[in-house]
């Protein structure tokens, strides 16, 4: 078995793991984390495809690599936004849950708890 195939199988398992975690884990922070894990797996699949596409004196196809670099940056910005949303939810309700109907504190905007 070649190294690319090994990493490809690893990437497939990572996608499965991340998907499972982001569905099952009740904590929003850990859902975000699991989603990033999933993203890592997808990027790795791109890496395997790039490595298999080595041609023209390049060790790997540059186009998937460039897409992964863009992907990592976008994943970071999405993660930062999601974490900020979550922290704001925690500040206003005192809880970090996605359950609907969780009681909120009155007049959240005038209170700066949690900072």
């Amino acid at each position, binding site marked *: 078995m070649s*190294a*690319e*195939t090994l*990493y490809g*199988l*690893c990437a*497939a398992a*990572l996608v*499965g*793991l*991340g*998907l*499972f*975690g982001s*569905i*099952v*884990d*009740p*904590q929003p*922070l850990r859902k*975000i*984390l*699991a989603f*990033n*894990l999933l993203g*890592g797996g997808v*990027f*790795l*699949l791109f*890496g*395997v495809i*790039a*490595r*298999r*596409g*080595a*041609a023209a*004196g390049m060790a*790997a*196809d*540059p*186009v998937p*690599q460039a897409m992964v*670099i*863009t992907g*990592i*940056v976008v994943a970071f*910005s*999405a993660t*930062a*936004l999601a974490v*900020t949303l*979550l*922290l704001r939810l*925690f500040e206003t309700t005192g809880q*970090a*849950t996605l359950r609907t109907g969780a009681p909120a504190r009155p007049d959240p*905007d005038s209170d*700066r708890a949690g*900072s």
Partner: protein
Amino acid sequence: MSTGFALDAGLVLDAGLAALVLAVAVGAIVAGTAFAAVVGFVTYGLLLALVWVRLAAVDVALTEAAIGSGVTGAVLIAAAARLRPAEARSAAERPGVPLRLAAAVLSALVAAGLAMLVLLPSAPAPSLGPAAAVHLPELAIGNPVTAVLLAYRAIDTLLEKIVLLLALLGVWSLAPDRFWGGAPGQPHAAQQDGALALLARLLPPVGIVVGVYILWVGAVAPGGAFQGGAILAAMWILVMIAGLRDAPATGGRRVRLLLVVGPAVFLAVGLAGFVVADGFLAYPASYAKPLIIAIEVVLTLSIAVILGLLASGPPGRERQR
């Protein structure tokens, strides 16, 4: 000295590394506390950087090391520490067995489908490598990944910068109205002495040199604007965390200018392409390399400021006028 052994040693290393990545990922999913899961994720990013080197994608390894593991890790660790009081309660809302079982089956199916794709590749493997190589001499850019990012697929990179700016606007808009334009969060208590203050004084000068080096070398070897910008951002975040410099007011004119200068210059060069070359984001042949370098320099500045502010969170204080 036989080369057969070298191949074997490499393959053993690859197998071990793949197993390790999987083990850390499982650990991050099943960990008992959110903090343990986040630390697991940081090591996951670090191991992925090693995998990228093994896959001959050092550009990606640099990005993963700087953003994937470094800056993302810092954001998640800080969030895990803040959310700890709410953790027990939200962890208790674990879904029932049927849903967990269904999720497991779905995830296993997705993973199996992807594994099939890996095991049954199309032959010959698709590659845009030859197409990317054709115009490299014209661009005078030695690193094909940089050429893809800033010439062939420059519109992706431009739009990605817009996404970064939108994400930052999204983060800012989560603050209460009265804080709009103010500085992010609360200032960290200043420390004039101690290990952290020492680190925050010694590391940034070196980090700035390394960041500029990574940017510069990106034209001919792995590196570039993203990686350099992320390193600069990390150094800035370190100085802010140590309390040596407070975060700037998000409404300040200098900050706003730095945020948009990269995308603006990129867009201006792109539009100029209509006049001096064949169309949007086309570069006149003899000026391709200087133009690309100029775009990368301003992009690096903007990326550094955007990433640093994204990590700092929404405004938490009223603006001082």
